[in-house]
């Protein structure tokens, strides 16, 4: 029985880490408060907007609805884990080149979901893109540009 804070271990963007979490802490607040990673952010708080997207064991989840304690023993990727000091991820490049964002608050979620989408559908059509990304909302409504970005990212991925 776990009553209070507990130390969990997991891999964060490839690095083994530990964190002290209480059962009521969610993933977003732990990433922000203990690792200063602010790319996953809580907006709607209901798993509907996608701003809090993180990838746990290869699957995207809503960090605002995911208890941090459940990260114990997992591999976690956040948007900060995609690029290297030398090079952006091809999805990130595609978002910049197509200007597929405005305020940028929802962008990390879109970028992470796009990497997942392309793993599953390397050459997606419009319907597949819309369907896969339907759980990500953008109040600046850059949806048409995101579709362009995803297609450009698919092209870049094939090229590399």
């Amino acid at each position, binding site marked *: 029985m776990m009553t209070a804070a507990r130390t969990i271990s997991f891999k964060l963007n490839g690095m083994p880490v530990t964190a002290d979490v209480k059962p009521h802490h969610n993933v977003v607040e732990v990433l922000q408060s203990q690792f200063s990673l602010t790319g996953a952010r809580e907006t709607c708080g209901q798993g509907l907007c996608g701003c809090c997207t993180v990838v746990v064991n290869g699957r995207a989840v809503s960090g605002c609805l995911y208890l941090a304690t459940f990260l114990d023993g997992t591999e976690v990727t956040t948007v900060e884990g995609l690029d290297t000091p030398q090079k*952006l991820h091809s999805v990130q490049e595609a978002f910049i080149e197509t200007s597929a964002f405005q305020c940028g608050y929802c962008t990390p979620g879109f970028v992470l979901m796009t990497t997942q989408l392309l793993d599953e559908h390397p050459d997606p059509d419009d319907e597949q893109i819309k369907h896969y990304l339907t759980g990500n909302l953008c109040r600046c409504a850059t949806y048409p540009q995101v579709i362009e970005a995803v297609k450009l990212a698919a092209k870049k991925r094939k090229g590399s």
Partner: protein
Amino acid sequence: MTMTHDAPKAGSQVGRSVPRLEGRDKVTGRAEYTHTMRLPGMLTCKLFRSTVAHGRIKSIDTSEAKKVPGVFAVVTIDDVMKVIPDPYYGPAFHDQPILAHEKVRFVGEPVAAVLAMDPHVAEEAAQLIVAEYEELPAVYDEVDALTTKTYVHDVLKPAGTFADLKHLKDARDTNTALDYRLRKGDVDKAFAQAAHVFEHEFKTQKVLHLPFEPHASIADYKDTGVTVYTASQGPSFVRTEIARLLGWPENKVRIKVPYLGSGYGAKLYIKLEALVVALSMIARRPVKLALTFEELFYQITKHPSTFRIKSGIDKDGKIIARKCEVFWNGGAYADIGPRVTQKSGLTASGPYEIDNVWIDSYALYTNVTPAGALRGFGVPQLVWAYESHSDMIARALKLDPVEFRRKNLLREGRPHATNTIIKDAAVEKVMDHVLDRMNWSKPFDKSTGVVKRGRGFGISIKAVITPTTSVAIVNVSGDGSVTLYCGTIDMGQGSDTAMAQMVGEVLNVPTETVRVVPRDTDVTPYDMGTLGSRSLFHMGHAVQRAAADARDKLKALAREVGEPEGSNIPVRDLFVKKYGMQAGNVIGTGIFKPDYIPPAPGTGLSENVTAFWMVSGAGAEVEVDTETGHVKITKLVNVVDVGKAINPRIVETQISGAALMQLGFTMFEKMHIDGGQVTNASLADYKIPGFHDVPTVMDNSHVDTNQANGPFGAKGVGEVATFCVSPAIANAIDDAVGVRLTELPLNPESVYRAIRAKAGKPLEDE
């Protein structure tokens, strides 16, 4: 490219689709936003909010909340007034208390604040506060607010900034926070002479901005000065207002604004800043308040409106008289509502040349969440009405909607209702472009099945908020690199990139090498605010002037160190020649404030009411399911006059984003309010557009024009594509199924009910 002091060729930076300068930080998740910032030792604030719409506070019991382990303090207005004796703020009226004082005026108004290191502790404690109220009658509707005996405020307290509010000082027994009027010609006489008179009433619902970064502010108070980190569209105003509240000079107040997770008008003027400053003064530690998504519904919204419009038409289809009565539901605190009322009110008669115009526009207090500017400063509400009205008149008179408008359009060189002469407003060109993109002259298949098709369009005009001031500084460093200091907030509209392009153009350096300094009132100079599509024009001018000033000073420096005329040595070498090493700066400054003549009292007329005109048009094709009322938008055409596009890709994204946002306000967005309580304060129940709401075809473009008095021929674009979306869709629905909706949103049930009513089989109420 090496920067040289003499720019040889122009046109290389402006007009280019430069990728956004901040793009890398945004796609990697490293861009800084206030909502995710932390300071060492920071306390988190959670609010206890009113559960009554209008009432006198009898007591606030904070004892149980204070007992929760980890609670640092529980603060009410009594505590605030010990540090800020006069705790009222606001841009138009000093009507809003830092926390509820004596009365509460809307459900959700902050009544007490809990401070704790752990946000969960603060949240739990806030649930334990109990307040007792003596409930008062409440007023919710904007038309009722004009005549009711229920008054939201006992006494009106204009801030003193705006001349047209001075007459409301100390006014009692009224909910009117501004009564703007325009009188041109003689409408009564013209109505008497008209062959046809049409009168309609239109309504818009309460919707809100919902920036994905909800409001957030952090104050760090020290006796020597206060620093506020805040998600604000107007740090200069925040600074002035905080200084006023504290009785301090402005130079002791520092406002820092990182990137904004969008604004759309939600983060204008002053929002959470006064509260966090007061809390930091009380706690003597940094205090952060970051709203949750639900709390956005209690912060600021768009104005619901009622617009009664009456037009007199002569036998040739010319509009000879128009009377507009607009009622703006401003909520419990005026915020910037009076400016919405006036600045949009003056264009209420539309993009038409009408000799006799009467406009009454009322800002009204009610007991709901305050309303402010939302991507259009009220103009979308007006266009919704007057462009629906246009089609209704054309339909009733069996006139072609295009020809009816063409007969009445405002043209270059002709007087607007205010008497200001129209200049650089491509009204007809925009309309023609919309019609062209719609293939309007081609036959259109309306279909005869269960699903019927229709099409419609609208055209609009807006005046920019005038007069306002912007200041910019361009700093050339010893190595020749260039830094821009300007107060325009990049909240996603791409202003950093566009301003850098202007600097690059003047100084002939690549845009990508220009550094734009993050907003910090200690270093970035004054700007009136990032609002109303004013920045590209006003700040653009200031930036252009600052860059030109720097260029002139570089030339002077070259002369001073003995360089011959026409010499083109690298700037770095110029500094070395002057200072013997890589050292020194050249500072260029620029200030811009346009000419303006205030509207004459009584008539509202002015020969120069706006620095520039904005124009947009939209066209929609729809499919209406006659069995359910569902409307599918198969094509949405958006055309705007932006003058010359500084960054065409960003312009296109702005047009597309604005139109889609308005599509949400048109089709389904609505705050449901029951007894003053918002009942759908979440993204689960307040829906916004997603991927599947994007029209099958989106066709966005801007007409090729030149704004003669604009920087590089440009003018603003942020709001303009919102204006015509609603009437274009309503006109298309009418075309498809012959029903006219006069109240937003055009949701399936509304459309279905209208279809049933038309068939003589109205659907019963609840």
